[in-house]
């Protein structure tokens, strides 16, 4: 059957046949880099368009509908505009850090792409500490945001960056604990093994109550971590104009914008991997024929479908809720989410030890 796995395998075989192993590995790296960058570009365009369409649908309007069929090329046109715009640097800004910040934020997104399993055996780097890698790298994005806020030499940016720092550092905890719950069930940090463990059913269903709780916690925490409404305090439009990227324009702004959507994609991809079985098709117990039909759907479609469902969920939040206040945001994390996730982890451990999960 046609699959991404086959394509990658044949390319690798061909490369190793033609070149010596070192060179072949180097060429593979180049191909992966190019693919990652093009994936970024496409994801950015698709997600921005999706966001605008979802928003328009929720807000009883049409959304972009002029450029291309159904406004499909609107974001392409927008990107073109942003590329051609002048990228201003404020006079009193720390020029080096100011220019570096968008790339730091972007780079974090790129690094996080490595351990994600897009389809069956289609993964850049199946590292054995995958989940640990993800939680450690994702917390680096706060450095880029703080850098941008500080280097802009703008008070709004600084306030936004400080908020973002406080927010990401706090919500990192609940997100980490939510992920740990699944790690406890699986007994492995490796992404491929976590996916494989969901052969018989997704963790969301077979992990009992703790998995359900940690799924909800995870969605809340990552919404906060990616600075999305209702937790978009770092760029709280009506309070801080645009928060940490107030001074950015042109392509540098576009990089922040893109990084936001890439981050959403990545956290949703991880959420789909951990809780919804990654590329694993939906299998229900003993329904052999049903399971068989499900197997015919390619694994990449399964993965993308689940990821985009979660992305839709996060967009839905954004267009429905007002923004929290900064102290309420921190209260929510430290007074509610963190104790719940700690208790939840304990519960999950008990269930895992006694093997009560399916």
């Amino acid at each position: 059957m046609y699959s991404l796995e086959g394509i990658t395998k044949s390319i690798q075989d061909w490369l190793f046949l033609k070149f010596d192993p070192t060179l072949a590995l180097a060429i593979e790296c180049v191909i992966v880099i190019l693919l990652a960058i093009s994936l970024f570009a496409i994801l950015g365009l698709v997600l921005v368009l999706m966001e605008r369409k979802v928003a328009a649908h929720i807000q009883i309007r049409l959304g972009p509908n002029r450029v291309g069929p159904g406004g499909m090329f609107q974001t392409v046109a927008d990107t073109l505009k942003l590329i051609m715009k002048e990228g201003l640097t404020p006079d009193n800004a720390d020029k080096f850090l100011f220019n570096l910040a968008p790339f730091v934020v972007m780079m974090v997104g790129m690094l996080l792409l490595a351990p994600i399993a897009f389809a069956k055996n289609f993964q850049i780097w199946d590292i054995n500490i995958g989940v640990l890698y993800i939680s450690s790298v994702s917390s680096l994005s706060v450095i880029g945001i703080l850098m941008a806020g500080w280097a802009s030499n703008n008070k709004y940016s600084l306030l936004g960056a400080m908020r973002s720092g406080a927010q990401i550092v706090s919500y990192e905890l609940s997100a980490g604990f939510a992920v740990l719950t699944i790690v406890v069930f699986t007994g492995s940090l490796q992404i491929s093994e976590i996916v494989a463990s969901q052969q018989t059913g997704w963790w969301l269903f077979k992990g009992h109550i703790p998995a359900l709780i940690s799924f909800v916690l995870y969605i809340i925490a990552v919404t906060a971590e990616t600075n999305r409404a209702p937790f978009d305090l770092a760029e709280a439009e009506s309070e801080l104009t645009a928060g940490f990227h107030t001074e950015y324009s042109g392509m540098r702004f576009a990089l922040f914008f893109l990084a936001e959507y890439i981050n959403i994609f990545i956290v949703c991809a991880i959420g789909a991997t951990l809780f919804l079985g990654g590329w694993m098709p939906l299998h229900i117990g003993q329904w052999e024929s049903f399971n068989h039909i499900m197997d015919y759907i390619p694994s990449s479609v399964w993965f993308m479908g689940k990821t985009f469902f979660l992305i839709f969920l996060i967009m839905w939040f954004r267009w429905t809720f007002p923004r929290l206040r900064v102290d309420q945001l921190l209260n929510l994390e430290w007074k509610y989410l963190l104790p719940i996730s700690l208790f939840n982890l304990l519960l999950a451990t008990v269930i895992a030890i006694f093997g009560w999960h399916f």
Partner: protein
Amino acid sequence: MYNQTEILKDTSELGAEGELVINMGPQHPATHGVLHLVVTLNGETIKKIEPHLGYIHRSIEKMCESLTYRQFIYVTSRMDYLSSHINNLGCALLVEKGMQIEVPDRAKVIRVILSELTRIASHELWLGAMAMDLGAFTPFFYAFREREMITEIMEDTCGARLTMNYIVPGGLMYDLHPDFQKKVKAFVKQFKAKVTEYEDLVTNNIIFQSRTKGVGILSAEDAISFGCTGPVARASGVSCDIRKIYPYEVYDKVSFNEILDTAGDSFARYMVRVKEMNESIHIIEQLIDNIPDGDFVGKTKNVLKLPKGEFYTRVETARGEFGVFVVSEGGTTPHRIKFRSPGFSNLSALNHMAVGSKIGDLMATMGTLDLVIPDIDR
């Protein structure tokens, strides 16, 4: 006179140690116009707010001194542009009071219906803008859906969507559009059906409630002392509805409630405005089928001359008490005219309400004050 430089005190905005001074505005998404607030912060906590006004000051009061009593009414549309019809009404009432012009009943009723429609339109816009200040974008579009129907009615009736200029001293400029009653009834029907959507989306939202309850509290004493009027004062329990206290036009013949709340916080101000929309609908329902026949404008002289003396009228706009004070020397133009705008007094309470709260609270407080900047600057 005295030396000009003496009165220019040092306006340097250097904060003390540990303070952060930010300029909120004149271009800022939450100030809805060109309000400039110099906010002194300690971390996220507000220590002082100092409004700097005048970015849209057009000296309307001075302008009116050279306009005749027929002309000056229409300048006031540009002040509080969201309740321009009510501003016009206040000015026309003053001229009619000063010259003892009889206004036909038909004109009176139509004026009141349009006033209430204006009030609803203004509150709708406020609802959307305020929700946007708190970070929720969607209510804006829901509110504008209903507001659009009102602006269409206005366009049919007055030829303008925002600055109606429909009133002349003694009545109205033209008669009603034939579709007026039908369209207003359609609007009332739709509004009643859709108002529950606001409840679902905004009022019952737990985040919205936690953002507004207990935020920006204004006690009744302070509301009176700051001269607050309209929904701001009524949310603090101060009864100040001009339509009830000093009824004008046909407000003494219709039944409606003055909405009062006692909490004085942002949520109370929100609830007062939402309930006021329902009261306005109630007024419209009573009047829409009972528009008397007859002239739409009374007999007036061509050149209006107010007798020598001082005149004051007040009307209830969507933001509160709008007062017109005219000193006449007996000529065709006012000698001095003063507009008592509700926004100006309401703004003066902002510092008192917001000190000690967070920046996010400032948005809730400012949003529920419903500031319209041309109304403040004049």
